[in-house]
């Protein structure tokens, strides 16, 4: 007997055995969710936020869904794609998780995409925001946002509010380039002029770039830096006196991340950004969420936390709809799902598996002695413009 035939036979038997399990028997099994997050390293605040939100969701909604016990396995990938991939592989093969979730950065999400496709395991992206991610696997569902989605409304708002000349300053990597391209395309189409600057990811000093902005004398500076760099940027912006020079600071919400906003101090006051979530979003759902989050986690939720919270929501609701089945059925159940999130009404686009949501224009203001992004305009039901353009 050849070894290969034996192996095939064994595999066949195992498959037959699996197929033979009745739905009733399966209902007894626990449904494991592998949550892979950067818990240490430069993006650790993302991991901390999402973990807290996911645990809060489980605490609020119980750990039994559709008759199956939900078990959360949290793994730290330190923000390195190789580690993410290895952890996902271990979780899928050894732990037989029903879904993998988390993914703090674009490369981390992309490294797992082939595994999700191969193993037919749903991959819920709760943070990474480059537009193309959901195209990497038909099993990817995203509950965070895409940068073009958050950027386009800002460009439209800027041109509608009399700005003619804008300089963009973005960090030179996937999401930054996404933001730059979207802003430039939208803003020039509306008749404005744009000058682009890219800052290297490892950049200790913004001064030469800010000096260039000061010399260009634009109406506004559009900025995207990954969350965490925002504070440093803001301080150098004021240090240079740009806040008093009449150059408005605009950007996506990453730069005034709720998690760090208070630490930035009054330098951040008046900054206008567009984003899908603010901790002071005015709704009953959000007030309850923020209160519960602060109580259990001890800090304020930000947009990362909300991505995690809603990510758990689609998994839970998907399990209910499919009576606890995972894999392809779960992804199909999530497609088209619509609900009222703490950030407002949202739905999962059945074609792109990306989230459709309101984008808000906000301004940093003092509320009860703390800094918040106060929303003052709403652009309803924004789809990711990159994929929407491809579909047309």
């Amino acid at each position: 007997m050849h070894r290969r035939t034996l192996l095939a036979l064994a595999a066949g038997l195992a498959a037959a055995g699996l197929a033979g399990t009745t739905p009733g028997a399966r209902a007894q099994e626990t449904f494991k969710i592998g949550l892979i997050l950067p818990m240490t390293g430069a993006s650790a605040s993302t991991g901390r936020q999402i973990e807290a939100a996911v645990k809060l969701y489980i605490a609020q909604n119980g750990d039994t869904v559709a008759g199956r016990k939900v078990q959360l396995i949290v793994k730290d990938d330190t923000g390195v794609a190789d580690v993410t991939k290895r952890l996902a592989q271990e979780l899928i093969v050894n732990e037989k998780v029903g879904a993998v979730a988390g993914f703090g950065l674009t490369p981390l999400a992309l490294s797992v995409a082939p595994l999700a496709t191969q193993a037919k395991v749903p991959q819920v992206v709760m943070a990474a925001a480059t537009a193309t991610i959901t195209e990497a696997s038909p099993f990817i569902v995203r509950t965070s946002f895409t940068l073009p989605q958050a950027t386009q409304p800002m460009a439209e708002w800027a041109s509608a509010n009399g700005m003619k000349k804008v300089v963009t300053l973005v960090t030179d990597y996937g999401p930054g380039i996404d933001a730059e391209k979207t802003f430039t395309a939208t803003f020039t189409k509306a008749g404005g002029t744009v000058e682009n600057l890219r800052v290297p990811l490892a950049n200790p000093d913004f001064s030469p770039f800010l000096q260039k902005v000061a010399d260009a004398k634009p109406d506004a500076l559009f900025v995207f830096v990954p969350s965490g760099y925002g504070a440093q940027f803001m301080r150098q912006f004021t240090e240079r006196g740009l806040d008093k020079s009449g150059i408005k600071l605009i950007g996506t919400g990453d730069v005034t991340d709720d998690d760090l906003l208070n630490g930035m101090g009054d330098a951040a006051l008046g900054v206008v950004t567009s984003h899908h979530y603010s901790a002071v979003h005015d709704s009953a759902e959000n007030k309850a969420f923020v209160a519960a989050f602060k109580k259990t986690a001890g800090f304020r939720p930000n947009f990362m936390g909300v991505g995690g919270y809603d990510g758990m929501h689609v998994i839970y609701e998907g399990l209910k709809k499919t009576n606890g089945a995972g894999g392809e059925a779960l992804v199909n159940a999530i497609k088209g799902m619509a609900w009222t999130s703490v950030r407002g009404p949202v739905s999962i686009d059945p074609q792109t598996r990306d989230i459709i949501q309101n984008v808000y224009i906000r301004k940093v203001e003092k509320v009860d002695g703390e800094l918040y992004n106060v929303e003052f305009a709403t652009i309803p039901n924004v789809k990711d413009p990159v994929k929407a353009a491809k579909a047309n």
Partner: protein
Amino acid sequence: MLTILFDGVAYGMLLFVLACGLAITLGLMNFVNLAHGAFAMAGGYVTAILINRWGLPFLATLPFAFLVPAAIGLVLERTLYVRLYHRNHLDQVLFSIGLVFMAVAAVDWTMGSQQQFVTLPSWLKGRVDILGVQVGLYRSFIIVVCSVLVVALQLVLAKTRFGSRLRAAVDDPRVARGLGINVSAIFAITFAFGSGLAGLGGALGAEILGLDPTFPLKFMIYFLIVVTVGGTTSLTGPFLASILLGVADVAGKYYVPSFGAFVIYSLMIVVLVLRPQGLFARAR
């Protein structure tokens, strides 16, 4: 553009304060101390904690930002580093990089991974216009502090008894011991002093460079570039190298933004091809 020149000089000065401790330990004591950034981080965190939790003003925290890392440096030198002086450079590299990882993990565990903020007094914020040149107040402050430091250090090394003993101890420890110089005490003091300078640099740099647990890894490359370009046998070398690199980095990013990030590395390569011993060092 004088503003660019000014920013570059200030940035270079900051690099110098951060790296001059390394110039002392690596250059004078011939110890490859990659953990240098960890001492700088310690200084930054001392300042951040004293300001944010204890409410001390920024200037009052600076002595502590020097003393605490110096004390840590002294303890580590007596207990760990002293055992590695005679080992080869690879052992020293492995040991000190291990220390870096431990420091990163320890700070992450105790302080959290988020950015720390240092609140500056209002008289150090903003900028003034001097003869048409926009001068940042905080950057001027850095330039003043660094200028004082470099003069003082050079005087100590070149003119004092301690300086000549140190140089003797480094060049030939056996003969120095024979002459009645307490070599190990001199090494300990020098190491502590180098660590303290790193701490001071970390405290001064927190505002511009940011401060989080990955600090020693993020900026290690810059310290090493300064010391390699400047050469390791004197302090003036790293000082001039810092200024050159600071100005080149800032100007490069300003005038050729698309290539800007590589200017500092290209400069290093050119210098090392032309003068492998460092820009301002005599060949050994």
